[in-house]
């Protein structure tokens, strides 16, 4: 009896989390324009998704931006973590503290403050991508920093000195000794940066050029009465993103099980 109650609880919550997405997945393969009215099977939504220039631009733009932001954040955050780790206590403490600001701050405030900084102080042209990239990098880098730092703490520090004693240059020792030991932290930092950028709405909406849309800003506008064609094409997009996320999670978990990484989740 207790077992039944427990699994009922689990399945009910799963139903709540997945029913909306799965219904959209099913309907994305039909030609109905409203949920609830089943018509025939159709791939029209996918055709629309991949043939409407506006939609393609938006999707490609979002992913290019996310990868760009991910790479910049990873470089900045990793270098920052290594540097801060070997700096004086006070410097490290100050960097740790400043690093926490974007993490705990509301994204709306981060976006707003960077935007007025850019416009009022730096007089940056908002039609360029500079404010958008800087805004998202300032959101993502702290998470890279936070995922690299624990790896540095666990690292065997004598190896670096051994490398130097054996005649390695500091730069070479960095790439041959330190980086390989902290690579899991760098990878998970990069993945976090990627997902944060893909999921971001608040910073993008304040800092993006008026003519550019990310998936988030586009979808929010589209829900306010877009054409039906676009609306149902977005169901197809939801389906593809759902499949992509599931695949990535699945693959990364298989890797974890195979002992490639001892990381939780």
């Amino acid at each position, binding site marked *: 009896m207790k077992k039944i109650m*427990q699994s009922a609880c*689990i399945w009910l919550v*799963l139903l*709540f*989390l*997945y029913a*909306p997405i799965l*219904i*959209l997945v099913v309907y994305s393969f039909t030609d109905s324009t409203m*949920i609830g009215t089943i018509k025939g099977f159709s791939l029209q939504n996918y055709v629309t998704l991949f043939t409407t220039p506006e939609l393609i631009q938006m999707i490609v733009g979002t992913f290019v931006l996310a990868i760009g932001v991910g790479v910049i954040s990873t470089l*900045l955050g990793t*270098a*920052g973590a*290594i*540097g*801060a780790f*070997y*700096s004086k206590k006070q*410097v490290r403490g100050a*960097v740790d503290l400043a*690093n*926490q*600001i974007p*993490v705990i*701050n*509301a994204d*709306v*405030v981060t976006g*707003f*403050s960077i*935007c*007025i*900084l850019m416009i009022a*102080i730096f007089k940056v042209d908002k039609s360029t991508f500079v404010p958008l990239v800087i805004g998202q*990098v*300032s959101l993502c*880098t702290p998470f890279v*920093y*936070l995922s690299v730092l624990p790896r540095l703490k666990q690292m065997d520090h004598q190896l670096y000195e051994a490398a130097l004693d054996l005649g390695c240059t*500091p*730069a070479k020792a*960095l790439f041959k000794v330190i980086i390989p030991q902290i690579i899991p932290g760098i990878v*998970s930092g990069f993945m*976090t940066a990627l997902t944060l950028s*893909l*999921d971001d*709405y*608040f910073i993008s909406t304040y800092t993006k050029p008026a003519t550019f849309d990310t998936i988030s800003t586009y*979808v*929010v506008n589209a*829900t*306010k009465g877009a054409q039906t064609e676009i609306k149902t094409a*977005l169901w197809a*997009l*939801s389906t593809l*993103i759902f499949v992509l996320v*599931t695949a990535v*999670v699945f693959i990364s*978990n298989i890797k974890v099980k195979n002992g490639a990484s001892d990381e939780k*989740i």
Partner: protein
Amino acid sequence: MKGNWFSRKQLAIPYIMFLILFVVLPLIVVLYYAFTDGDGNVSFENFLHFFQNGKTVGTLVYSVIIALITTVVCLLIAYPVAYILAKGSFCGKHAFLMLFVLPMWINFTLRITAMKEILTVIEGNLAYYQFFNTILCMVYDFLPFMILPLYNTLTKLDKSLIEAAHDLGADKVQVFFKVVLPLSVPGIISGVTMVFLPSMTNYVVLDMIYNSTYIMGSLIGSYFSAYDWHNGSVISIILLAMIFVVTMISNRFTDGDDASAERARRL
């Protein structure tokens, strides 16, 4: 040797510069705008304006209420789930946890669109149960963020304490309220931080289902589009103050930056 250490420290310079320019400086700019008037004189006029205006104060109260209810509902749903998952001995436990956490990585605007479509079909018109729908969509958005920290705390729980309580004659209810619940407080606190703060500012959920919003986040937006940076900054400062207080409280209960570490460990 000294020279080599110096070169590693230098790696932090770009990030330190970045933090000063794009993290600390924006806050100073916001502080400046919040405490000055249009001519650049120091004034508290903006804050008076906020707290004397019934509409803005009402918005603040409403955001806190929405955030509180969302957090409580998330906690009430997430705790049993996390508890069953953590305690359970069924196979594929990890796979089940992944199922609960996976929605975190799907773009939230797409998930809310899905929820909106379903609600429209069920209710016919979203106008009937506005408050209920708001909370439902917020909970739908934030639930995974509550489950993960609770699960992490509950799996780390020292099983021998539970056994000891049983041996000493406590019944199941007593064990739960006297042992399990107190020990899971750090998880509760970090889950609450991860849900309460974002739900106070996440105006997009409301914006998407009702095209109009009355919570703190959207106030910044409306001042911003009116180029009223002084009042927009006031909202930011008020939000920052609340965030600061909540974080301080949560740090007392958890070992330092648990909540942020939780958020960082998303993948």
